[in-house]
């Protein structure tokens, strides 16, 4: 937790509101602001900042060579340093520093990485072997940054600093909860695991933004190899700093920190509940006490964690056993140069390639699943096919084109080429990647094979239903080709005459429905379109093109 001074109209302290690094606190407007209604009907808007603790993907601990590994037998990933044995000393893990620098470069660029100093945060708790935590206090390694959410809202990053994790207590008796337990058992395997604490500015204005922020942060951490981001294993833990203000005002009021938010679901619920609690207090003229509160998922409420006399006095001072960490500009530049493309940039690239908006759900989902390269490369192949006017039904056309060693069919330049693919191809590729390649193995399908399938589809040689079936075969059998599977399944495009015969048969077999279709309003007609296409598909064993059949139905109704 980092200390922030807030101005509260009900509790003015006379100081300008600044954050832990002395920067002015700003709260951005947004078209998505969560507003809660207090008991008296007054309306209050949310002001929220998030603190995310991410366990770093190192082999060893922050300050010793004991393994950083989840799920092992208790107290086996410990060495004298981990247990805080008398006489032991910490030494900083270079990889942990590198990952922190990577994060800084990702969200704030090289200039956001600074000379940093470790401090001791002193408090007694049995899961902390030394009864102090080595953390970074007034000189964190990352001092600025920002994160663009899929919605387009931008959340500022105040700081990110390195620290060590604590051990874990298990409570025996009292149903495993801390209150009412008979005694507790402590495992120090997690103690000393490197953590990056990432503190956002109070720029989160809605519960949806809070969820998006955490999801986006997780994507960045995973994409950059900084953390495995597994919330369920506790490698990503979220605390929320929540305050409210009168709707439309610019005031900053006292905030509370909510801990124990273990899922995106509890995050939104807890923030909304806490905002309402505070709104009720303000509306009733009562004071919100700055404190740490604990989210009780089962009860759906937040509760105070400590009495006031146990007020925080962490007695921070510079860790005398460690020296400052001051990454050289050369090292920072090297790390920045090796960064992968980040989710926001990838969404922009995919949006450009497909012509969809950056905020489109398909774009967000595909990037989230890291299948944007697959989609873009498939489109690049399709663009190439259109360029040379190849025959899509020749099984090896695309593979042969790819063998031409043409630039931009995959990799960084593929996006520009992909944008030139036919619009029909763009739509089909997005549908396949979003829906039909979401399952196991889907992401591994080579883009060129996907492109071959879509080429057949766009050329009218496969219906959407057939394409879906072929795609499943392609995923299951790495040797299969789209044209080969289609032929083997007997999928041949129906000629217009055969289709028309099938449509006529459906009409003749269902005269009452046809009458309703012919005379009904668009709503009725829409409903019955589904019915007739279903009949036609059944009769043709799915070989009919749904779109073409619909067009024929419409034509016959108006004849």
């Amino acid at each position, binding site marked *: *937790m980092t200390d922030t001074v807030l101005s509260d109209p009900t509790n003015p302290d006379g100081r300008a509101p600044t954050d832990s690094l002395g920067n002015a606190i700003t709260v951005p407007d947004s078209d998505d602001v969560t507003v809660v209604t207090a008991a008296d009907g007054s309306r209050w808007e949310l002001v929220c900042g998030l603190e995310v603790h991410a366990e770093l993907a*190192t*082999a*060893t601990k922050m300050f*010793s*060579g*004991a*393994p950083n590994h989840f799920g092992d*037998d*208790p*107290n*086996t*990933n*410990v*060495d*004298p340093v981990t*247990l805080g044995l008398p006489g032991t000393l910490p*030494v*900083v*893990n*270079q*990889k*942990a*520093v590198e990952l922190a620098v990577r994060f800084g470069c990702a969200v704030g660029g090289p200039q956001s990485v600074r000379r940093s100093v470790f401090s001791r945060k002193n*408090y007694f*708790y*049995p*899961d*902390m072997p030394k009864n102090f935590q080595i953390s970074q206090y007034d000189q964190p390694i990352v001092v600025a940054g920002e994160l663009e959410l899929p919605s387009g809202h931008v959340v500022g990053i105040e700081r990110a600093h390195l620290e060590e994790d*604590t051990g874990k*207590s*298990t*409570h025996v008796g009292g149903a495993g909860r*801390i209150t009412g*337990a*008979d*005694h*507790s*058992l*402590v*495992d*120090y395997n997690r103690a000393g695991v490197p953590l990056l604490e990432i503190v956002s500015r109070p720029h989160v204005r809605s519960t949806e933004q809070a969820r998006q922020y955490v999801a986006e942060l997780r994507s960045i951490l995973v994409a950059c190899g900084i953390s495995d981001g597994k919330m369920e294993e506790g490698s990503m833990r979220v605390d929320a700093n929540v305050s409210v203000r009168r709707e439309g005002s610019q005031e900053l009021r006292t905030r509370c920190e909510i*801990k*124990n938010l273990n899922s995106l679901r509890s995050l939104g619920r807890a923030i909304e509940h806490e905002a309402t609690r505070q709104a009720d207090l303000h509306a009733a003229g009562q004071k919100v006490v700055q404190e*740490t509160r*604990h989210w009780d998922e089962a009860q759906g409420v937040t509760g105070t*964690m*400590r009495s006031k006399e*146990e007020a*925080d*006095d962490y*007695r921070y001072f*510079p860790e*005398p056993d*460690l*020296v*400052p*960490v*001051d*990454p050289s500009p050369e090292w920072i530049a090297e790390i920045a140069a090796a960064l992968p493309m980040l989710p926001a940039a990838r969404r922009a690239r995919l949006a450009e390639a497909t012509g969809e908006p950056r905020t489109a759900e398909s774009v967000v989902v595909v990037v989230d699943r890291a299948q944007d390269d697959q989609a873009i490369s498939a489109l690049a192949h399709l663009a190439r096919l259109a360029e040379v006017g190849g025959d899509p039904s020749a099984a090896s056309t695309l593979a042969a084109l790819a063998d031409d060693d043409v630039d931009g069919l995959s990799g960084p330049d593929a996006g520009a080429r992909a944008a030139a693919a036919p619009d029909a191809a763009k739509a089909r590729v997005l549908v396949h990647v979003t829906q039909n390649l979401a399952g196991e193995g889907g992401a591994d399908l080579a883009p060129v094979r996907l492109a071959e399938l879509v080429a057949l589809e766009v050329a009218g040689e496969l219906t959407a239903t057939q394409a879906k079936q072929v795609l499943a075969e392609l995923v299951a059998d790495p040797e299969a080709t789209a044209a080969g599977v289609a032929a083997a399944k007997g999928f041949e495009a129906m000629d217009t005459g055969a289709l028309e015969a099938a449509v006529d048969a459906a009409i003749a077999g269902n005269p009452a429905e046809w009458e309703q279709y012919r005379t009904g309003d668009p709503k009725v007609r829409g409903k019955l379109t589904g019915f007739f296409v279903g009949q036609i598909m059944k009769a043709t064993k799915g070989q009919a093109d749904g779109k073409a059949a619909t067009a024929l139905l419409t034509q016959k109704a108006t004849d």
Partner: protein
Amino acid sequence: MSTRITSDDVAHVAQLARLELDPAQVELFTGQLAAILEHAEDVEALDLADVAPTSHPYPLVNVLRPDEVGATLPNAEALAAAPQAEGGRFRVPTILGEAP
């Protein structure tokens, strides 16, 4: 800054430091700490606004260790000195309250 440590301060500090002092010890420590702090007033009185602090006598920077796994203690050795252990873990009495 002139500071005079009071017995209330001493009692509060004892709580922070997880020590229990009886009233006589509180009085004794209050007097002794006051005397030591009084001796330190010469330092408090210096105007050092422009002086940088020295936290390390020998200035070093970027002392980092490679991320390589080293030796660990077997569980039995880790617990060898534990006042109480159970199921491979350190056993403690009831914990009141979550970690801060």
